[in-house]
């Protein structure tokens, strides 16, 4: 079935096709259409699922932990402040080794209130033990969400998976998507599996106090599971291509990297713009390629080393920033390549809070990097002072004068 739909509505189709049995979610712009469409599927189209309209995101994740611990496939959707609010329980879900899938529509963090795209929200929950996959098209959102259940419920993984995609740019735009039929998806995705559940015949206590003598082993098991996930993510993508059709890469997707001397590195929708920038660079005679990171956790260390270590230069595009350092994707690219090759790695922080990023701007920064005009610290090509910045500043000057700050 071919549909022209928003990214959010496509997620609802993915949840339906994955036969999720419990959905617990709290509305937040720009995620709302996901849960609206799921509740419509339940009410009008016979989707067989319990929907828990919780009173907060903290409770959304808590309810999901409850339902997944009963051995039932569970799903949620959130964004930005919602993800931040459930942060405590992200640790809990991964720590107690429960398979589940949640989509996060990447939206900027306040203040000020901003409903537009950047990756700060999910990058800030990087270290919770969740697998994080970033999508760059509607088709990829559908395919990755279905794959995510398979990855999450793999016996070698047993960790929650977060599928991330750009607010507004992907969540609210319409694109053509090939939606597979239920039978095909059933052949790819077996019924829910988990390594433990709340079972009346085998009563077990989960998540109680654990002393230092045992705690490190628990954390190591999560570390190992994420290592295993590298292989599982790639296998899931390949098997999906064979059974359902559609392939968007394994841990990374590359574009024109075969003969590239210079590479752009990006994630999500920003990578789509970078792809256009690669074409522009190529047409002006620069052997440029693109590495799109699909899996941010686990990070594609081997792939990055292999693809980037022989190059003359790398420019990493970050739609988020680790304050006091640089863009996190840039740091991690450097860490992956460290000790292999001599390519200088430059970082650009851009597109925050939905700021438009053009391929011209990316190409311009790439050219500056190639010509050695970029400094090692992060480059913020979009930052400028507008007329209204000056107006606010003049307004504040009265206050500064009163407080003797000048």
């Amino acid at each position: 079935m071919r549909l022209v739909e928003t990214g959010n509505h496509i997620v609802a189709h993915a949840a339906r096709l994955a036969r999720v049995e419990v959905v617990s979610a709290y509305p937040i712009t720009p995620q709302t259409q996901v849960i609206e469409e799921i509740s419509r599927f339940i009410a009008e189209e016979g989707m067989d699922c319990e929907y828990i309209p919780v009173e907060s995101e903290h409770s959304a994740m808590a309810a999901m932990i409850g339902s997944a611990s009963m051995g039932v496939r569970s799903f949620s959707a959130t964004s930005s402040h919602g993800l931040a609010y459930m942060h405590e329980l992200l640790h809990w879900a991964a720590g107690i080794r429960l398979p589940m899938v949640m989509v996060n529509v990447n939206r900027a963090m306040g203040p000020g209130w901003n409903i537009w795209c950047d990756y700060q929200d999910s990058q800030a929950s990087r270290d919770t033990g969740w697998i994080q996959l970033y999508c760059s098209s509607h088709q990829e959102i559908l395919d990755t969400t279905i794959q995510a259940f398979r990855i999450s419920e793999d016996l070698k993984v047993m960790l929650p998976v977060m599928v991330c995609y750009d607010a507004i740019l992907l969540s609210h735009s319409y694109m053509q998507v090939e939606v597979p039929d239920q039978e095909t998806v059933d052949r790819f995705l077996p019924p829910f599996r988990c390594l433990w559940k709340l079972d009346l015949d085998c009563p077990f206590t989960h998540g109680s106090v654990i002393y230092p003598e045992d705690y490190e082993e628990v954390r190591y098991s999560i570390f190992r599971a994420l290592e295993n996930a590298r292989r599982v993510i790639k296998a899931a993508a390949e098997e999906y291509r064979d059974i359902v059709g559609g392939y968007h890469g394994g841990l990374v997707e590359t574009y024109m990297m075969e003969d590239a001397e210079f590479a752009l590195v990006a994630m999500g929708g920003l990578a789509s713009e970078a792809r256009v920038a690669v074409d522009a660079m190529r047409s002006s005679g620069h052997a440029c390629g693109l590495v799109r990171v699909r899996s941010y956790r686990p990070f594609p260390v081997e792939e990055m080393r292999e693809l980037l270590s022989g190059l003359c230069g790398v420019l990493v595009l970050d739609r988020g920033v680790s304050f006091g350092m640089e863009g996190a994707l840039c740091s991690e690219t450097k860490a992956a390549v460290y000790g292999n090759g001599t390519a200088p790695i430059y970082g650009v922080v851009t597109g925050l809070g939905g700021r438009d990023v053009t391929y011209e701007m990316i190409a311009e920064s790439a050219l500056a990097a190639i010509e050695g005009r970029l400094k090692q610290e992060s480059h913020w090509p979009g930052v400028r002072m507008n007329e209204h910045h000056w107006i606010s500043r003049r307004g504040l000057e009265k206050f500064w004068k009163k407080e003797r700050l000048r």
Partner: protein
Amino acid sequence: MKLRDFPEEELFLQGSAACQGCPGSIALRVAFKALGRNTVMAVVASCTSVFQSPYPLSALDLPVINMAFASGGAVASGISAAADRLVKRGAWEEKPTILVWAGDGGTYDIGIQALSGAAERGADFIYVCYNNEAYSNTGTQRSGATPFAAWTTNTVKGKEEHRKDVAQIMVAHGIPYVATASLAYPTDMYRKFAKAKEIKGTRYIEIQSPCPPGWKFPSSRTIKISRLAVQTGMWLLYEHEWGRTVYTAGTQRIIQGQSKLLPVEEYLEAQGRFAHLFRPQRDEERIAEIQGRVNQLFETLQFTSKMKEHLMDVELSPPH
């Protein structure tokens, strides 16, 4: 039902790490006997998270998930929704009782939002607040349940505010069953759990839980203090169903004049957390404030009770 009629099977096993005289462990024992094996339990951060025994041991012979502090009502909503699914597709024959076990910190303060949300959604579980009137697990700090004038480690001169009443807040949610219980009246507590088990929807039971180290009394006196709380009117025993409150056990006897309301001093003086009201000199003002509140409450309760005797007692039917 008499004590000797309680089921012999112990689902709260020996060897827990609870303090001597721990009210939480006594409450668990009675609750488990009334609810039986067909129960799934969620424990939120509280003393029970600790005294159930650390990994790999457990004193709880039920399927248990330990959860983050603020999540009791929500995790039970998820468990309940999943149980509905399992029953619907025939994986489970019947839906088990879902039990949330939380302290007063996890109920009155950090967990009230999740509890209120779940109650409003009519989620199907029994929520137990074992109320020891402070954050005992972290060394006795004040909570929303700490009574007026009680010492805690962060109200060293006695709490300045009165406690809130979450059982009444739950009554205001219009849920099918709200009850309060006392360790000194175990048959009353057992009956309330057994009754709650048979009801569908959100059920709330609050157990006053005198904590020997937190309240500063010898560990042999947990039951004695529990009884004094009821006899002095500092803790009320009732159950609320279908819009009607029925007072039970010790509280009912006081209201009906069968036993005397003891002065609050007897309750206060027995606990180190109120010692500053009596030494170095008596704090008449604060004792009078506490006594005044109890007197006023019981005057109202007794008046209402007498009014009812004069009116025709209308039998209320359950909602359709």
